[in-house]
C-alpha cells in the first residue's frame, strides 16, 4: 500500500477529475451538443485513466459503466466525424451514391446520443 502522502495526492486528483466529469454530465443532460459530447467523453476518459494509473492509491471503484459510457460516446463521435469527413472528401459525381451512407451515419449518431442519455442515468462519478 502506498504511503499517506501518495494516497492524499491521488485522492485530490481523482476529486478534481470526478468534479469535471459531473459538470460535463449535467451540462450534456441539460442540452446535448457536439461540444458538450466532446467534454463528456474527455472527462470520462480522464477519469478512467486516473483510476488505471492510481488503482493502488485510491478506494476501489468499478469502471464497468464508465467504460460503457465511453464506448457509447465514441460511437456518436465516430458517426459525426465520419459524416463530416465524407462530406469533405466527397466527389461531386458520387453525391447520389453517398446519400445512403450519410443517412445511416446520421441515424447511428442519433441512436448513440439517445443511448448516452440513458447510460448517464446509471453512471456516477466516484467519491474521492
Amino acid at each position, binding site marked *: *500500500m*502506498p*504511503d499517506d*502522502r*501518495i494516497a492524499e*495526492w*491521488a485522492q485530490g*486528483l481523482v476529486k478534481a477529475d470526478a468534479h469535471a466529469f459531473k459538470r460535463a454530465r449535467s451540462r450534456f443532460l441539460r442540452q446535448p451538443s457536439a461540444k458538450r459530447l466532446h467534454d463528456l467523453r474527455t472527462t470520462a*476518459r*480522464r477519469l478512467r*485513466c*486516473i483510476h*488505471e*494509473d*492510481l*488503482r*493502488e*492509491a485510491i478506494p476501489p471503484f468499478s469502471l464497468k459503466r464508465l467504460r460503457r459510457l465511453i464506448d457509447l460516446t465514441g460511437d456518436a463521435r*465516430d458517426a459525426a*466525424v*465520419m459524416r463530416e*469527413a*465524407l462530406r469533405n*472528401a*466527397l*466527389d461531386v*459525381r*458520387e453525391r447520389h*451514391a*453517398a446519400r*445512403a*451512407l450519410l443517412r445511416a*451515419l446520421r441515424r447511428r449518431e442519433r441512436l448513440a446520443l439517445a443511448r448516452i442519455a440513458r447510460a448517464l442515468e446509471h453512471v456516477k462519478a466516484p467519491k474521492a
Partner: protein
Amino acid sequence: MKARHVDLSDSCGVDDAMRRIAIVRFAEVLTLVPALRRGRSKELHDLRIACKRLRYALERYTPREPALLEAASRLSQLQDALGELHDRDLLLLAMPKDLHASAQRVRMQRDDALSRARALWRDAFAPYGPFEGLMRFTGLGYGFGDGGGTG
C-alpha cells in the same frame, strides 16, 4: 489495448509515484511505436491510445514538473494526427465500393496524417526537442532520435 498495471506499493513519495506512472506509460508508447513504420490501422489505434494515456499522466504532473509540458503538447499533436488517420480508416471501411473517387481522396488524407505523425515523432527526439524533459524524467527513449523508433 489494456493499460499496464503501475506498481506503487513501495514508492516513496509523490515524485517517485509520478515517475513510475510516466515510465510505465512511456514504455507502452515506445513498445507500440513500430506501428508508425508498418502503418497498420489497429496498431496505430493502439499507439494513439497509449499516447493519450501518457499525455493525461504528464498533464497531471506539469504543475510540479513544467519540463513535461512540451512532451504533453507534442503527444497531443501526435494524437490528433493519429486520430485523423483512424477516422479515415473507419470511413474507408464503411464506404461502398461505388465511391471510388471519394475513397481515393480519403486514402490521400490518411497518408498525409500518417506522414505528419511520423514527422512529429521523429522530431520529438531532437536535441532540446519536446521529449527532452520526458526522457530525463523517465530515463527512457534514448536512441529513438536516430530513427530507431520508426526505422
